[in-house]
């Protein structure tokens, strides 16, 4: 299941500091959307508001609306814990649980809330998720070994497997390849192409080639200066953003003149 994300006039604050101002955009299901922009322009901050992970940070809050297939993410009575089960997240640094085996890592989300799962179902799910993350062939003989023994790229794919094991509707990725070598990066990019068939994917990236390679749409964020809020400058088809953007700042950024 893949869902549409609509954001309407969203502001994000860290206590008094407004980090992101007035973002409105619509993200289509079964697509990959890339967020690009210089450091500190609020890409991560904005991304985290799409599954309410910003609420983990004391003082962080939002104004505005985020609709997932029409349902308000911030509506009264919406439990952020349930939101995060629908909207999965992969982080910049691979973060498998160090005390868990590969298999336990994949099942970590599924076992939450004391949900029971039979052993054969669990084995099937582990295989399906690891296959989905293009990792099965590399780890099938050592599922009971610790996840932290894998290479960085494998760990990141393990984290993706863990995220998709709970069958979310949307997958958020915050610079998932920035800690990885080029080969692992390509493996993850190929994987995203596959995942797009089933999930809405939003990826933050610093790598312009990556954005142009994998994404269907690109959103360019920018800040006027330090202490200023980040704003969505331009949001369009990736092709348009990289070949004939409408805004000068976008063109400067994608052509490498700053950032």
């Amino acid at each position, binding site marked *: 299941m893949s869902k549409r994300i609509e954001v309407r006039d969203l502001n994000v604050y860290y206590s008094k500091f407004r980090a992101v101002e007035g973002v409105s955009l619509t993200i289509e299901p079964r697509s990959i959307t890339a967020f690009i922009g210089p450091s500190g322009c609020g890409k991560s901050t904005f991304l985290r508001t799409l599954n309410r992970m910003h609420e983990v940070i004391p003082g962080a809050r939002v104004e505005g609306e985020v609709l997932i297939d029409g349902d308000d993410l911030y509506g009264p009575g919406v439990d952020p*814990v*349930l939101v995060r089960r629908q909207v999965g997240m992969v982080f910049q640094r691979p973060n498998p649980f160090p005390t868990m085996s590969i298999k336990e890592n994949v099942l970590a989300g599924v076992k939450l809330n004391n949900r029971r799962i039979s052993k054969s179902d669990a084995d099937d799910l582990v295989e399906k998720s690891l296959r989905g993350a293009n990792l099965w062939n590399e780890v099938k003989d050592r599922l009971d070994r610790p996840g932290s023994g894998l290479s960085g790229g494998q760990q990141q794919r393990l984290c993706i497997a863990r995220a998709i094991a709970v069958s979310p509707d949307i997958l958020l990725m915050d610079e998932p390849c920035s800690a990885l070598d080029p080969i692992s990066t390509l493996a993850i990019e190929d994987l995203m192409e596959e995942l797009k068939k089933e999930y809405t994917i939003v990826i933050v990236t610093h790598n312009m080639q990556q954005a142009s390679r994998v994404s269907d749409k690109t959103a360019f964020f920018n800040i006027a200066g330090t202490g200023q809020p980040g704003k969505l400058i331009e949001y369009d088809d990736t092709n348009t953003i990289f070949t004939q953007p409408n805004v000068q700042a976008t063109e400067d950024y994608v052509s490498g003149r700053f950032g």
Partner: protein
Amino acid sequence: MTTQTERPKPVIRLGDRVFARSTLIAGSLILVALAAVAIFLIVEAIPALGADTTELKGSPSNFWTYVGPLAFGTVWAAFLALLIAVPLAVGIALFISHYAPRRLAQGLAYVIDLLAAVPSVVFGLWGIKVLAPAVQPVYAWLTDNLGWIPIFSGPVSGTGRTILTVAIVLAVMILPIITAMAREVFLQTPKLHEEAALALGATRWEMVKMAVLPFGRSGLVSASILGLGRALGETMAVAMVLSPSTVISFVLLQSENPNTIASNIALNFPEAHGTGVNVLIATGLILFVITFAVNFIARAIVARRKEFSGAN
């Protein structure tokens, strides 16, 4: 600057030299003191091993039957204290590190640290005057209703001054150090792993179970063992609260309770004479060995996770 071949005499400032010397002296003094204590204990203990012990309280047939119940009481009371203190400490530490608002957390952490500064005599007085009378009715209820469980069997102590009361007092005494260490360990949980759990849709408690507790496990073990070390050696509180006899018994609520080594020494030393003194010193040696073993285990565990340097 200088080439390898010339090897000029390195210049050492006077301040550095003084500092190096004084640390060396201080370090050696510690070793000398420790060795002196050990030698004293061993030399004074040797006459006790073959001594005629029938004149001692309880008329034990030899030294080992004398020290046996005491060693048992020491370990049993400390173990019970740990059993009470560790879950409580983990709960408080988690509350401070992951649940309480920051202001409250700081205040609570401060109160816990203050608890560590209370002299053990005060805990002893509190144990006799407040705790024992307060828990006695509870003990009576326990023997009446749960007396079929061997450790709760009657007859109940009329004063409430039992090994369980001692264990509670000891638990309160070791609570601060265990809590403080547990809190430090929990605070060091990488954000990365906490966020991993939360992003999977974990509740706060599930996040704690998934990320915080597994990460803190070995730190907790060493915290507990340090607390255990303190409970093993505690003298005043035990001596004041307990009305001892020479038994090896697991029951918690009766008036017949095994004493601990440290408390036994404190109680009997003033009147001891002749080989009686040697016997008491020998029991001190046994306590030394027990405590040393516990600390040794703690060191070994702490060394396995060096990043928790808050442990020492």
